[in-house]
């Protein structure tokens, strides 16, 4: 089975020292509803450069559907796009 990533609209904070932190995002669900998600904690950030594509992978905790979820959100530096890469749990 192929897992499709989901593009998201993101509100993020750019700190004075250049750190980028995701705060809140929204995306269109499979049933075409707009879901807004507040990020409660950024657990870790990893910089990747697979096939030369520079990206930042954020592992975040968030409340979704009345449960805590661990999500991987990815920011591609060159395209400035955020995606919901996968839900760990």
């Amino acid at each position: 089975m192929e897992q499709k990533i989901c593009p998201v609209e993101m509100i993020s904070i750019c700190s004075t020292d250049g750190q980028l932190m995701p705060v809140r995002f929204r995306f269109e669900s499979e049933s075409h509803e707009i879901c807004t998600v507040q990020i409660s904690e950024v657990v870790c950030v990893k910089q990747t450069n697979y096939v030369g594509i520079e990206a930042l992978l954020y592992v975040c905790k968030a409340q979704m559907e009345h449960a805590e979820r661990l999500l991987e959100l990815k920011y591609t530096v060159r395209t400035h796009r955020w995606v919901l890469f996968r839900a760990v749990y």
Partner: protein
Amino acid sequence: MGIIPGGLLMAERLIFHVDVNSAFLSWTAVYRVKVLGDTLDLRNVPSVIGGDRESRKGIVLAKSTPAKRFGIRTGEPLGTALEKCPSLIVAKADYGLYVDASRAFISILHDFSPDVEQCSIDEAWVDMTGTAQLYGSAMTAAGLIQRRMREELGFTVNVGISSNKLLAKMAGDLEKPDKIHTIFPEEIPKKMWPLPVGDLFLVGHATETKLKAMGIYTIGDLATADPALIQRRLHKPGITLWHFANGRCSDQICSIPRDNKGYGNSVTLPADIASRGEACQVLLSLCETVGMRMRRDGKKGRCVTVHLRTPDFRDISRQCQLESVTDVTKELYDVACALFDALWDQNTPLRQLGVQVTRISEDYGRQFSFFEQGYGARYDRMAKMDRAVDALREKYGESVIFRARFADQVDRQLAGGLSKERRTNVTKPV
């Protein structure tokens, strides 16, 4: 180690050849898994990267290891590959992605040594001489390069280690994928000589046939053959191959790309053509591209070659030496047409046409001739016009100006070469 004046130890040359395994396929596979989040890794299933079938460029550009087991070969038509393996996954090439991956690949190599010579989009030689104090033994350094490529960029590479470029390249090709091999001079008889002569660097199909006709089947046979005999049959390149078979190669690592030895472009046509008018139009568009590239590099050439490919993949070509060097599109076109007329039987359909200019020089002087027909005084004016057209195209785009002949098909006025999105200067300006 040798000793240089002053008592310092001089390290022996240590050259790495680093080659991405199934480059296009690996890069697409990593992109799909690591960037798009797919779970299917193309490297683990029978899959190929294919050209565009609709424009008849549907050939296998790269294949996975499982696809190789079905006998699928790089360069064969996609139709044949699908006959061999009906479940074959065909992925489209993404040149923008390959350029990014190639740049990242070369960038990592530059972390290991300042002397990196890129020989294609996915291969490079690295001069690692004197790095033992930094990285340890050659095997350790090669392992480190492999690890960084795998962990940071997501794909595997082969590393060949030796004391010159040729042996490093041969070592890199010994076993794939994700392997490190050495062929130092003392290992040549054991590791290189038993290989078929066709595996030797720069031995193509035609040379292999000639060598086999002489009873030379392995690289060892060539190495121990009489050089005089080789020279008689294969001329000067034969002696180079004889030295190669003995592991001798004096080429230095050259970090700056070398000048082109020739400028050539060819185009596979969407449909076969069988009229002189159509063929000449294609030749004109090829001459436009070749001329523009030469003028951009400030080069001129003296020898023009036209090559034709028939639908049954038969190649024919003819060349002509000019009185003086040129970069003028019109002059190239006139010569190309004359060559075409001498070459074509006016009947056989044509699948591919190509124009190449060689014997390149930077000599801008032109030897005018009493016997030259037409060009004498007009040459300078035509050269000026070409430069003006180039400047307009550079500034406003390629379709801003075109010959009336291409009025109804502006997109075909510059045939051959890479499409705009693929022109990236990652290896050589195209």
